């Protein structure tokens, strides 16, 4: 009964999306003030703004301009009563630089949003209430299925919703949703992280335009991901896959008016969202080809039927199909070589980054491989070798890039890419005795601490935005924030230790399991890469922590607090943002102690034996490597001033070269730029365009001019003289008569 109604978890965010789009957002828009008489300043401003801002309708723009003039300072708007902001006083002098917006607001910040309308707030509450329902329901499902396992649920799972989409002869296309333990575990992650992110966004997005729209997109994103989680067959998972692509596009490009920042190597959100969408499509080509190969060979899309059907399939075809399907995961989970979209996706609002990285998007690739684990297992070992090597290489590769990045969010982006690589290694080396357990376990723990890292980063960026009146993401302008934002710093430190695999934190259990499995299965290459990456991870995460929150001169030997390199006064973020941080810190520590995770997913698997894990030597090798990373990072960044480190690196040619290569992300983005510009646009597209112009258009125009030419010749026949027509007519009749006579005689 409990399980049969679990489809409500899936439809709750969809309902939230629909209610926000059709009811509360309309209410929000209608309740905004409309101004008929626009003063001169406001008019100029509206025109300037309207011309660069095609996104908003014009009456909204006019209202906004006028509103900015007539505004009064309020508690919600810190900019106007901020004494350090000298720009805000002569209102209306410099409309281009957003002075009318009160100084530090960006293109997409809405001056009216401090007075969030009732409709906008209602949108947030609708999304929150429905997501809270989904979250509580999925936790009940999880607890219930752990406490009293349902044999049916363990064995086959329940199909909770079924609809025949299309019935073509023998082939039955079904929209079917299905739950089992794997789906429930994932559902908990998705709904929990989404709920906390939505709660957090109340604070983070309070100044942004399109507050209601943001909540509708978040709900759509959660729904899309839940479609993947609930999918019973490849058709549904592909639908969810594309929906996730769409909603990530909408959310990454949410601040549509923000400009690119070439000096920080940051694209504009609009182009970042397009890049994410297009790069994902490249992977999806492989995904859909793989699905088609499987479908042609077995005649079914359903995972449960495929598990049996693939056993009779040609092994080579199956292996090719599974590698093609993995291509989809490469795109969605940002593995090398399709990882470039994920760092660009940092241009979206930070809660969106948290959602993408922790629960809803990149996890989809891992979840899909976990869901199709029996199919990968049935294929040739080469399939899992591909998965493992791509994962391990990506883990190492992304970790080296993260070592030197100075952008706060970009470090996290590369750490996500790296950790996803771990998950794929975990899936690849697990073998039948663990199943999808280790990879999913790392996904499960990673979701909490990575969401925490991102929300903490968002909290820092929010505080710096209020302190410096502009968007600052560069860690060189941070430092010593721990004493100023203690809650954010403490929770961030917990997440840092968790992702570094510090013993006792959740990341330790999941990551050491994966590294240990690579060791057990004598996958030495994968073992070496994952082991080194563990050290690198510890290094760059503690580096980021110290650069942002610590520095030489702080407490605890420079770990906590220290000199602040930016401007203005930094304050802790509001409770709407700190509460999710605290709530996420709890599972970041404790999630690893769920030792029954492997047996929960697969009753035949060995459970995680913590005692065993603690006495194995290879665990301690891994821990030692991580500790070395932590100590080196501490020794460098907490004991030496940042300027000295930079001067040291710049003075050594070898170090400088390595730093430049890593800082430019191995020039892969530049290479792709070159590839797109010169090979795709000037090469393939030019050829295609030439073919189109000269061959396709040539045929069409040729046929047309042939016909017009023929017609202009033939029209001379129409002399207008009746007698010539008459000759034609009777001549024709005569010819036909003669023909008929001849034919009749021939037939006779």
């Amino acid at each position, binding site marked *: 009964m409990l399980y049969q109604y679990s489809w409500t978890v899936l439809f709750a965010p969809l309902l939230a999306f629909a209610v926000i789009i059709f009811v509360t957002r309309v209410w929000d828009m209608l309740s905004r003030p409309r101004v008929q008489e626009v003063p001169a300043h406001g008019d100029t401003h509206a025109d300037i703004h309207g011309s660069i801002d095609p996104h908003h309708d014009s009456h909204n723009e006019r209202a906004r301009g006028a509103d900015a003039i007539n505004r009064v300072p309020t508690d919600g708007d810190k900019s106007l009563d901020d004494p350090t902001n000298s720009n805000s006083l002569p209102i209306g002098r410099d409309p281009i630089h957003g002075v009318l917006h009160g100084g530090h607001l960006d293109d997409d910040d809405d001056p009216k949003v401090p007075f969030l309308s009732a409709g906008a707030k209602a949108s947030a509450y609708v999304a929150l209430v429905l997501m809270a329902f989904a979250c509580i329901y999925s936790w009940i499902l999880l607890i219930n299925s752990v406490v009293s396992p349902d044999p049916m649920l363990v064995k086959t799972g329940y199909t909770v919703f079924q609809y025949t989409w299309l019935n073509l002869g023998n082939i039955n296309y079904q929209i079917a949703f299905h739950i089992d333990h794997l789906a429930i575990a994932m559902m908990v992650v998705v709904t929990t992280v989404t709920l906390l992110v939505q709660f957090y966004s109340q604070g983070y997005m309070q100044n942004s335009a399109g507050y209601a729209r943001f909540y509708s997109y978040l709900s759509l994103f959660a729904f899309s991901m839940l479609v993947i989680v609930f999918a019973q067959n490849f058709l549904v998972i592909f639908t969810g896959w594309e929906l996730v692509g769409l909603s990530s596009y909408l959310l990454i490009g949410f601040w549509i008016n923000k400009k690119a920042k070439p000096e920080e190597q940051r694209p504009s959100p609009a182009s970042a969202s397009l890049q994410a969408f297009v790069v994902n499509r490249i992977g999806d080509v492989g995904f859909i080809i793989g699905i088609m190969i499987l479908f042609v060979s077995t005649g079914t899309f359903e995972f449960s039927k495929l598990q049996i059907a693939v056993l009779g399939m040609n092994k080579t075809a199956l292996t090719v199909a599974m590698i093609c399907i993995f291509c989809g995961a490469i795109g969605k989970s940002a593995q090398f070589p399709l990882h470039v979209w994920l760092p660009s996706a940092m241009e979206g609002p930070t809660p969106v980054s948290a959602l993408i990285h922790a629960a809803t998007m990149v996890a989809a690739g891992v979840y899909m491989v976990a869901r199709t684990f029996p199919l990968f297992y049935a294929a040739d070992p080469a399939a899992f070798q591909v998965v493992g090597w791509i994962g391990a290489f990506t883990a190492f590769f992304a970790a080296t890039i993260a070592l030197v990045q100075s952008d706060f969010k970009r470090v996290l982006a590369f750490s996500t890419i790296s950790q996803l690589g771990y998950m794929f290694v975990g899936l690849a080396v697990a073998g039948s005795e663990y199943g999808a357990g280790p990879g999913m376990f790392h996904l499960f723990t990673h979701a909490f601490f990575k969401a925490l890292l991102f929300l903490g980063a968002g909290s820092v960026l929010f505080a710096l935005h209020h302190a410096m009146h502009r968007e600052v993401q560069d860690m060189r302008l941070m430092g010593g924030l721990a004493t100023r934002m203690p809650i954010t710093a403490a929770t961030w430190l917990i997440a840092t230790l968790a992702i570094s695999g510090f013993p006792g934190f959740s990341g330790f259990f999941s990551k050491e399991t994966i590294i240990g499995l690579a060791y057990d299965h004598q996958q030495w290459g994968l073992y070496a890469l994952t082991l080194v990456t563990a050290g690198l991870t510890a290094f760059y995460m503690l580096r980021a922590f110290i650069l942002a929150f610590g520095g030489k001169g702080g407490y605890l030997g420079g770990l906590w607090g220290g000199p602040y390199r930016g401007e203005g006064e930094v304050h802790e973020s509001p409770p709407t943002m700190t509460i999710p941080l605290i709530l996420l810190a709890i599972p970041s520590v404790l999630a690893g102690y769920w030792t029954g995770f492997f047996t929960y997913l697969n009753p035949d698997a060995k459970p995680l034996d913590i005692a065993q894990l603690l006495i194995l030597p290879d665990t301690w090798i891994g821990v030692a490597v991580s500790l070395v990373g932590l100590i080196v990072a501490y020794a460098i960044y907490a004991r030496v001033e940042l300027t000295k480190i930079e001067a040291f690196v710049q003075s050594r040619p070898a170090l400088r070269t390595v730093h430049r290569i890593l800082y430019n992300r191995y020039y892969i983005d530049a290479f792709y730029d070159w590839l797109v510009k010169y090979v795709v646009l000037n090469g393939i597209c030019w050829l295609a365009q030439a073919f189109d112009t000269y061959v396709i258009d040539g045929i069409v125009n040729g046929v047309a001019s042939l016909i017009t030419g023929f017609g202009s010749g033939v*029209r*001379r026949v*129409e*002399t*207008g*003289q*009746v*007698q010539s027509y*008459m*000759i034609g007519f*009777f001549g024709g009749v005569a010819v036909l008569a003669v023909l008929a006579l001849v034919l009749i005689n021939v037939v006779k």
Partner: protein
Amino acid sequence: MGLTLNHFLILGAVLFCIGLYGAISKRNAIAVLMGIEIMLNAVNVTMIGFSFFNTVKVHRPDGFGNYAQYLTGQIFAIFIITVAAAEAAVALAMIIAIYRKRNTVDVGEIDMMKW
């Protein structure tokens, strides 16, 4: 040797050809009209010829048999005469109208329906 169907048909064909020649070769519109009238009458001759020779045996109740003619062709001929009269009236009216407008009845010069 009496009249047979072939006599009528040959007469019709000859008349038709004469009419057609006149209609095609004459420059004067009235002569063309006359050629068309001859063609119509050629058709009439053929119709009546067919009608006369196309008979069917009728069985009467008193036992005497007789050959009856199909009258369709003759009715058609009357129709054609009627239509030809109307057509001649209309065509002459048109010729007069054209003459008033263009001052000619030479069909070679009447080419308003040209491309």
